[in-house]
């Protein structure tokens, strides 16, 4: 195992008593609890961790946080592998396995790096320009390009982990657990507001974790520990470490991805989710998301060993790791001097500090100078040397206007370059909340402008970079948020902390180190992850792109998984320079969720497997299961489709079920039909307006079939409604439309006709329904009932009775969807199974046969009964279906006016007909197109389509229902149905194939 030769002997937040080993690119390394994968690799002297996306250039660790564009690794193995994990955020655990991405055969020797040689001919927009022609070839190009594109590997096995969601409400959500966020959370919680504090790191403290400063006479570590302890002791506070706020949506709804077990690796507990998505509804939000340090844009600034100054400081202070032995700093602001001091104190040789500013005068700069470290004012790195690790830098002077390198180059040897081009507040969530950014020229950064939602930014996220000011701003923001949320019990902001203020000199932006005379900026990397160079940005401007959004899409700048956290501001500043525009006029691209990439698993949560969608079960469901029924999904209901006996095919079973119903008795579970109880003095008037036909004359105890239309006059639903009492009706709907119909009724009652005294209640779930149909149906129900007179004269077709069936109080409807004598028996759901059992047992002597939805479809099609949603598709009127007698001329109803539109009165509308294939064995596929005759070449005008089609065992032939133009006047004519491999002639008929006189149904 490799030794941790770059580990400092003391310090850091690592636990030296708990050593860990891990595997990177097949090699074993050691680290400690408290390390990230990045810090452990650096402790082992490993800087080369990946290859870049386009040119496959060697890349190292740039940052110490979630902004990392380079150090992306494939984490884990098998089904539990994840691509694009940032090594800077992966907490080390024992036996962690990770590998570099985008390289083959190895990160050290990568064949794809050949792209780098052609970088001059692979500029921005290369793909768009090259693969446009010939157009037909795109499908071949795409195959190759898709294989070359993308970072990392998707797992090829199911994810063994599970994920869940949690909804939570709070008064104040504080995003970011650095000094500002801690102060905000404290103030809000002290005012008794419910507070959630979320931070993406494993411990709170944010930037303080890497800073060696003092607050109120305490070390920063002590200050953080005290704040966290106080928050943890308050019952109204929820602390969420390892939790990234990934999205800020409307109405202060935010989502947080919590990594509950990622740091435990595969050793986590199986009873807990690996990750959890928190769905937060916050009254107020405090954004204390900190800031990202910007890299300098110079030649070969992407070499391993070149990192952000603050990151180097974090590796030393938090992880006790020396990122190098000999460092050159390159900065345009004072913060890097603090880092230089930290590194120097850790025993790292600081070869020089290059400053863009002519005379760095800040207090920290003075301290650095006092240590005898060379500071070179108005100097820049002209180029970095070394390939897989920086070995030296070439240093040159900048001219007065900083647009040219002058003088002679000086070479300084080093194995580490720390750069700082200033700080960009992490305004991503603010921007997602639709807040507008404004540019602060003094601080050279975009800061939050006016808020749109109930949020406020504080601390570095607000462009406030001094520690003391952050604390004050945090407290103020927390208290203001609590107050705005209605919580402020005489709370006050604590006085400003005692801390020696550090005088800082202002930042002097240098967005791009000019190329040396005769060179280009095509190795000056702006976006590390997507390999966008300054030359690419310049090219885009030269080619006429003016919008920053177009720049983004043309160059792919900011489109990597890091969303350009380190690159955006540099890119648009360079763009602005070329266009001669000010930065605020260039603007920024849009920030979108998620803030950092998340697993699909955490978004899906528990909506997987058997919990993916509810299965609605009828009270008789288990009986169907026990009889081996095959099921069909109808909406969320799972209905028996058919009941195959051993050795039977589906067609065999359906044939048997149909014949049994026609010749003896069949039984169907009809519990899924929608049932709506309608009451009130205006119930009949209400039905009159809803249905196309009239209801006022329906006698108590009688039933009527009704069709309802939308405002457009198109059939929406149908069903039988019974009159149970003077002001009491019972409406049935199709299974799939039950909820929609009730909502439809309520909408009209509540918004259009509030004067109608009507109450509608869903009764679907209270009643179980067994429908017995067939010539022997009466014998069976009569045998089980003593208090209902089943004599056909006393209980005619389309009427209903109440009584006890099999000892169970029941409502019995004599209605039929099969064309047979039929009774629908409704009992309360808890008795549904008992009713069914009795019907089956007693019905055995009559040959009772359960039938499923398929046989039901066949039986009703033989009879020409429509199914809403099958014969109708939202473009079919009742008249098209041949239901003209049911469309009242005397009263108004929803859709009536639409039926007099010219279009609904067209003579060539499609009308419902029967269709009999000339070959009686040929069952047409449903949805088949119908034509007059098949022409040699298109277009062949379509005159209709098949809506239902079955083999009818009773008729011993195939039957179909179809919608055909002018169909009603064409009975007897032959049309053609072109299929994939043949053309089937079929004869148009009336849409009733069985008992058109209704002898059986009325029998």
């Amino acid at each position, binding site marked *: 195992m490799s030794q941790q030769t770059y580990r400092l002997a003391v310090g850091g937040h690592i636990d030296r008593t708990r050593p860990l080993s891990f595997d990177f690119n097949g090699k074993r390394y050691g680290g400690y609890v408290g390390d990230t994968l990045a810090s452990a690799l650096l402790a082992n002297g490993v800087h080369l961790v990946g290859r870049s996306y386009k040119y496959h250039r060697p890349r190292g660790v740039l940052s110490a946080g979630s902004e990392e564009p380079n150090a992306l690794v494939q984490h884990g193995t098998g089904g539990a592998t994840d691509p694009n994990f940032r090594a800077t955020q992966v907490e080390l655990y024992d036996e962690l396995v990770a590998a570099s991405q985008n390289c083959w055969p190895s990160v050290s020797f990568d064949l794809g790096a050949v792209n780098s040689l052609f970088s001059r001919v692979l500029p921005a927009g290369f793909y768009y320009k090259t693969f446009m022609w010939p157009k037909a070839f795109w499908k071949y190009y795409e195959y190759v390009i898709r294989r070359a594109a993308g970072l990392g590997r998707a797992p090829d096995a199911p994810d063994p982990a599970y994920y869940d*969601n949690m909804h939570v409400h709070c008064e104040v959500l504080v995003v970011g657990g650095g000094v500002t966020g801690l102060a905000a959370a404290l103030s809000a919680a002290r005012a008794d507001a419910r507070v959630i504090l979320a931070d993406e790191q494993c411990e709170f403290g944010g930037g303080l974790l890497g800073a060696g400063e003092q607050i109120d006479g305490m070390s920063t570590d002590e200050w953080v520990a005290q704040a966290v302890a106080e928050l943890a002791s308050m019952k109204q506070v929820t602390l969420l470490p390892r939790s990234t706020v990934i999205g800020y949506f409307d109405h202060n709804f935010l989502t947080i991805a919590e990594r509950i077990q990622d740091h435990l690796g595969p050793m986590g507990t199986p009873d807990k989710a690996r990750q959890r998505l928190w769905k937060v509804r916050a009254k107020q939000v405090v954004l204390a998301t900190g800031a990202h340090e910007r890299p300098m844009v110079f030649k070969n600034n992407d070499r391993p060993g070149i990192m952000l100054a603050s990151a180097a400081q974090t590796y030393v202070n938090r992880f006790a790791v020396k990122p190098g032995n000999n460092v050159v700093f390159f900065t345009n602001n004072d913060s890097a001097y603090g880092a230089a001091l930290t590194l120097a104190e850790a025993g790292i040789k600081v070869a020089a500090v290059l400053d863009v500013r002519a005379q760095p005068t800040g207090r920290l700069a003075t301290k650095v100078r006092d240590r005898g470290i060379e500071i070179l004012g108005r100097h820049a790195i002209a180029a970095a040397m070394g390939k897989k690790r920086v070995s030296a830098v070439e240093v040159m002077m900048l001219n007065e206007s900083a647009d040219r390198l002058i003088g002679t180059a000086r070479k300084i040897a080093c194995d580490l370059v720390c750069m700082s081009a200033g700080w960009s507040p992490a305004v991503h969530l603010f921007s997602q909340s639709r807040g507008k950014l404004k540019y602060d020229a003094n601080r050279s950064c975009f800061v939050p402008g006016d808020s749109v939602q109930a949020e406020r930014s504080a601390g570095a996220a607000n462009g406030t970079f001094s520690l003391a000011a952050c604390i004050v701003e945090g407290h103020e923001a927390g208290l203001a948020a609590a107050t705005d949320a209605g919580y402020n019990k005489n709370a006050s902001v604590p006085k400003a902390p005692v801390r020696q203020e550090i005088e800082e000199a202002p930042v002097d932006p240098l967005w791009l180190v000019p190329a040396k005379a005769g060179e280009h900026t095509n190795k000056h990397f702006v976006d590390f992850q997507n390999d966008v160079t300054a030359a690419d940005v310049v090219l885009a401007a030269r080619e006429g792109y003016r919008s920053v959004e177009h720049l983004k899409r043309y160059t792919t700048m900011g489109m990597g998984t890091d969303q350009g956290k380190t690159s955006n501001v540099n890119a648009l500043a360079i763009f602005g320079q070329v266009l001669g525009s000010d930065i605020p006029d260039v603007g920024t691209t849009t920030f979108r969720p998620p803030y950092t990439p998340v697993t699909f698993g955490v978004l899906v949560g528990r909506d997987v497997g058997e919990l993916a969608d509810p299965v609605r079960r009828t009270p008789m469901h288990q009986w169907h299961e026990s009889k081996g029924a095959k099921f069909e999904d109808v909406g969320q209901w799972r209905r028996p489709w058919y009941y195959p006996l051993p050795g039977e095919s589906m067609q065999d079973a359906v044939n048997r079920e149909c014949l049994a119903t026609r010749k003896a008795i069949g039984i169907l579970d009809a519990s899924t039909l929608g049932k709506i109880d309608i009451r009130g003095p205006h119930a009949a008037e209400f039905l009159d307006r809803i249905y196309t036909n009239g209801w006022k004359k329906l006698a108590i105890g009688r039933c009527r079939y009704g069709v309802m239309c939308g405002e457009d006059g198109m059939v929406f639903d149908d069903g039988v409604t019974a009159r149970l009492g003077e002001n009491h009706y019972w409406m049935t709907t199709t299974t799939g439309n039950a909820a929609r119909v009730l909502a439809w009724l309520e909408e009209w009652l509540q918004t259009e006709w509030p004067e109608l005294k009507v109450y509608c*209640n869903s009764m679907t779930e209270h009643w179980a329904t067994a429908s017995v149909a067939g010539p022997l149906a009466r014998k069976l129900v009569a045998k089980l009932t003593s208090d209902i007179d089943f004599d056909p004269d006393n209980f005619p077709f389309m009427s209903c009775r109440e009584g006890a069936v099999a000892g169970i109080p029941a409502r019995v409807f004599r209605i039929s969807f099969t064309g047979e004598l039929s009774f629908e028996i409704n009992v309360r759901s808890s008795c549904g199974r008992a009713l069914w059992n009795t019907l089956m047992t007693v019905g055995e002597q009559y040959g009772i046969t359960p039938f499923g939805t398929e046989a039901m479809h066949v039986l009703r099609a033989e009879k020409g009964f429509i199914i809403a949603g099958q014969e109708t598709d939202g473009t079919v009127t009742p008249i098209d279906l041949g239901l003209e007698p049911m469309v009242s001329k005397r009263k108004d109803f929803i859709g009536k006016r639409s039926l007099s539109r010219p279009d609904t009165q067209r003579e060539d509308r499609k009308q419902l007909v029967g269709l009999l294939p000339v070959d009686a064995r040929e069952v047409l596929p449903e949805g088949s197109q119908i034509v007059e005759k098949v022409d040699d070449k298109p277009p062949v005008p379509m005159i209709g389509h098949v809506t239902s089609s079955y083999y009818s065992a009773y008729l011993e032939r195939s039957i179909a229902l179809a919608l055909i133009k002018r169909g009603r006047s064409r009975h007897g004519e032959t049309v053609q149905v072109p299929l994939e491999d043949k053309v089937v002639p079929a004869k148009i008929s009336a849409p009733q194939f069985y008992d058109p006189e209704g002898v059986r149904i009325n029998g």
Partner: protein
Amino acid sequence: MAKDYLRQSALAHLHLAALGVDDPDGAGVVLCERPFRGQLSLRGNSADHEFVEGVQGVLGVGAPLDPNTVNVAGNITVLWLGPNEWLIVTPDGQETELVERISDALAGQHFAVSDVSDSRAIIGLTGIHARDVLMKGCSLDLHPRAFNAGSCAQSSLARCHVLLHQINEIPTYDIYVHRSFSDYAWRWLEDAAREYGFAIINQSAIDVVTQRSTRKESPVSA
């Protein structure tokens, strides 16, 4: 009224009685089915004194007029579902007679009362992590500052519609779920409860179980 042996509760197929314990002993979440209660849907105009008094006269308790509240008197519970809609819960077997009494008392008025006893299954949920389980699937604010014993609300739990009624501060809830969705709801609850350790309790024991643990009053209790 059908004989008891002819009846089956919504979750009968899960054989919960065979799995139930009397003492959930340390389980963070306790579940049971509460089968067979009378449930009536009541619709009427709450601004009409005659209606309000008529209902009060029969039930001995008024229908709650404040949104999402519950009135309880003796063995009758009335849950607010909407400005003109309530659910009346009674002991099993009293529903038919109660429908008749309410109908008689309100005769001549515009109202609707229906026996919907078998429309909804009722799942009892209690334990120190009961609220956390609901939070996994329900977007309402169920924190004691917003939702207490005596509160009720209609919402979604995961992918099904539910009526939640908080019974006490443990907290204990009655979850009313449409019968056809109850199998899904139960499976979802078991899954959500897994991390807290859960037990199925005998329906007769849930009312006597009292959890002595006090909860942190934080937005969550992880």
